[in-house]
């Protein structure tokens, strides 16, 4: 059973991956280390995608485990997706509030945003992903522009000394970065059936998108460190501060609006995608005829839920550093890995050459 029958071309799939990673990179007050090792996650997801080209995650789970167990895990995934959406939504609210609308209540910002997103989700995956290329392009241009604009303030000394943190901090940093921007790619497994690609193309596009996103994260982090130096940890949004510092004569100052544009655009993309995935997951678990009727009510749930998640952004940041990486590991790394192993052992999918 397929709920959304739209097909998305490979290039767009690639840019979707990029866009997804990029959007996380903006808010990364807590990201510090980045390693190429994260690509093994991409390998994992790719393997699952190639193994079950016509199934989405819930169907894979039901196929690999028995329908009952699979459904139970599926429900936990539904919770995971909804929570992710709500988390990002509250991020969107608090950060737009921080950058643009200081006195406007969160509710207004979030509800307005949610309505627009619900409209987008209504048109399905094709509409959502079709803007990925545009967004990636804009984000890259802004990124390059911002690097050029702060070129006069970059101090390469700020990178020194390297590797001077306790080992546990490294592990934590690597863990955070693999769970938060990269591990969230597990959501892509929900749209596998919409991407009709050959094995090679899947690899090509997934890794292409992954690399692009990875480069973005790298550039953002290095730029912020180079400009802000040791003050980096004290800011909630380092990127915003970096852009605020741009000062090339009186006309070319105050360009943080660029950040706002990028923030709203990329987060919008990410949340819409997550929102869509949540709705699809619920629809898939409940085996509904269409997912369209669930959009608004799921939106209402997510909105309400996002207000209960964290009492303040401070809690959010602390939790993102300490708790979420461990919690998400289950959904993003352990579960797919387990599924993969069991599927291999049970020689699934049956009757098909893999």
């Amino acid at each position: 059973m397929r709920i959304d029958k739209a097909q998305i071309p490979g290039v767009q799939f690639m840019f979707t991956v990029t866009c997804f990673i990029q959007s996380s990179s903006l808010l990364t007050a807590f990201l510090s280390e980045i390693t190429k090792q994260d690509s093994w996650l991409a390998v994992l997801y790719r393997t699952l995608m190639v193994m079950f080209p016509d199934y989405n995650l819930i169907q894979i789970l039901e196929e690999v485990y028995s329908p009952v167990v699979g459904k139970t895990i599926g429900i936990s995934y539904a919770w995971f997706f909804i929570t992710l959406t709500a988390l990002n939504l509250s991020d969107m609210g608090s950060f737009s509030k921080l950058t643009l609308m200081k006195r406007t209540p969160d509710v207004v910002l979030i509800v307005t945003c949610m309505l627009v997103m619900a409209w987008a989700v209504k048109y399905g995956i094709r509409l959502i992903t079709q803007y990925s290329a545009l967004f990636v392009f804009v984000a890259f241009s802004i990124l390059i522009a911002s690097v050029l604009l702060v070129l006069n303030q970059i101090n390469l000394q700020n990178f020194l000394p390297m590797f001077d943190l306790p080992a546990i901090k490294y592990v934590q940093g690597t863990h955070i970065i693999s769970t938060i921007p990269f591990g969230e790619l597990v959501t892509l497994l929900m749209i596998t059936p919409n991407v009709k690609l050959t094995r090679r193309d899947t690899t090509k596009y997934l890794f292409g998108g992954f690399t692009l996103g990875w480069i973005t994260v790298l550039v953002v982090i290095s730029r912020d460190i180079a400009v802000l130096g040791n003050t980096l940890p004290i800011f909630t949004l380092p990127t915003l501060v970096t852009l605020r510092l741009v000062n090339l004569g009186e006309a070319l100052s105050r360009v943080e609006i660029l950040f706002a544009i990028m923030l709203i655009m990329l987060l919008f993309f990410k949340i819409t995608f997550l929102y869509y995935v949540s709705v699809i997951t619920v629809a898939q678990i409940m085996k509904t005829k269409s997912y369209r009727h669930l959009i608004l009510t799921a939106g209402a749930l997510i909105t309400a839920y996002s207000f209960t998640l964290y009492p303040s952004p401070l809690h959010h940041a602390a939790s993102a550093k300490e708790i979420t990486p461990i919690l998400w590991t289950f959904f993003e790394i352990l579960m797919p890995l387990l599924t993969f192993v069991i599927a291999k052992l049970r020689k699934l999918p049956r009757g098909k050459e893999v």
Partner: protein
Amino acid sequence: MFFEFFVRKIKFLNHYRNYQQNNTENTIKERPIKIKKQLRENLDSLKTILGNSSDLKIHPFRFGANSSIAGVLVFIDGLVDNATLTNAILRPVQSWQFKDNSFPLEDELISVLEQEALCAGDVEIVKSLSDVISNCLSGNTALLVDGCVSGLIVNTKGWDKRNVTEPNSETVVRGPREGFTENLRTNTALIRRKISNKQLRVENMILGQKTRTNVCLMYLSGVVNMKVVEAVKYRIKHMDVDSILESGYIEEYIEDAPFSPFGTVGYSEKPDVVAARILEGRTAIVVDGTPFVLTAPMLFIESFQTAEDYYMRPLYASITRILRFIAYFITVFGPSIYIALTAFHQELLPTTLLFTIANAREGTPFPVFIEAMIMIFAFEILREGGIRLPRPVGQAVSIVGALIMGDAAVSAGLVGAPVVITVAITAVAGFLVPMQNESGSILRVVMMVLASFLGWYGISMGFLALLIHLGSLTSFGVPYFDGFAWTRNLQDSVVRMPLWTMVKRPKDIAQGDTTRTHFFIPPLRPYETQDEDDPEGERQ
């Protein structure tokens, strides 16, 4: 109450749509009236049907040996060319002699007349009076002979028509200057002259129960996406309309999104533009009586492409096209960004600029939003006034409005000068993309309202909603926003690539023969052959 009203409206619309779909082939055909043997009887019924209209001319004459046969010419005065009438019908028929003296039988007479007597190329035999009438009404002449149950229709169309002139709506510096006229045949001929290809199909149809307007569908078979043609035909067939006076009538009945600010059917007044679109695989709808030819499917980028883009060299053409995009962006978002910056996010303005604006705003009585609204409103009034009035007066209106009123309002301290500047730029920028003028002025106001509520956040949300809307639109099955968001058809979207790089026709629009040229051939230098590029240098 208000709500109810809308619901009822919408319900009615749906009801109507259902009705239309149920009554697919229900066009009521008049019962054909046969041509009678008695000429007088025929003439009488003709007169009754047409109600003794004064422009109906019935010209009786006699011919044959000893002028023994009575005939009559029926035509509408003014629609026929008198010279053709005389030279092609009257003179040859009256001077016609039977080859052998045997008088043809009554029924044969007509076909003999057609084959031997008439000096006209376009002749047709009809059996019913209704055909006679409809032909007469479209400018043909009917020849009825006493004692025959059929008549002859001779093409004598020839009314006063406008010459092919330079179109007013799309002027070019470089490029052909001819424009379509109100005459259907002239228009199809203009297109045919651009594309003399055997695959160019012209399909005729008559639309409008009262006006009986001739409409032509033109496309390049083998290149066109037949699904689009089918869709156009299907929609046209299901139109239930009594009159078609302009192509806009058809546009409204066949467009994809009737409530969207964006039009999903393209139009042009220039044969070269329409020909280019047909060559890309689009379908043209030529309507009698208007110089505007519809093309479908239409994409959003088409509004930003002008004929001249392709006649100029690609570099400059690309730059002007990008300029047009920026202009459209300004015309939609200009005032709202101004509102957001001055009323919400003063921190984003450079300090000196802020001082300038603050000084200008000091002492003006209205909030920025109202101020901008007033100016936009005034501008729309002036524009409307300028367009409808005769040209010399129109210019006077804009001078008075723009220069004197604007200046006076600023110096009286009613509005700040920055608002006037913003609105002026917005207005002028709108003229760069005339095809999207309507959507521009609607969206501009929407964005201003959003900006006045939520500042930059509102604008962003509006922008994203706009993207969603544009992304969801289709025009006859082709995504409307193709070329922007989709990673395809990019060779002719934001920039125009050189013509020799556009080897493919746009996807989805063209089907079948999608290659323009088979090779990617950059211009060659004189005396240079492909072999000389040989990097090995093997030719010794």
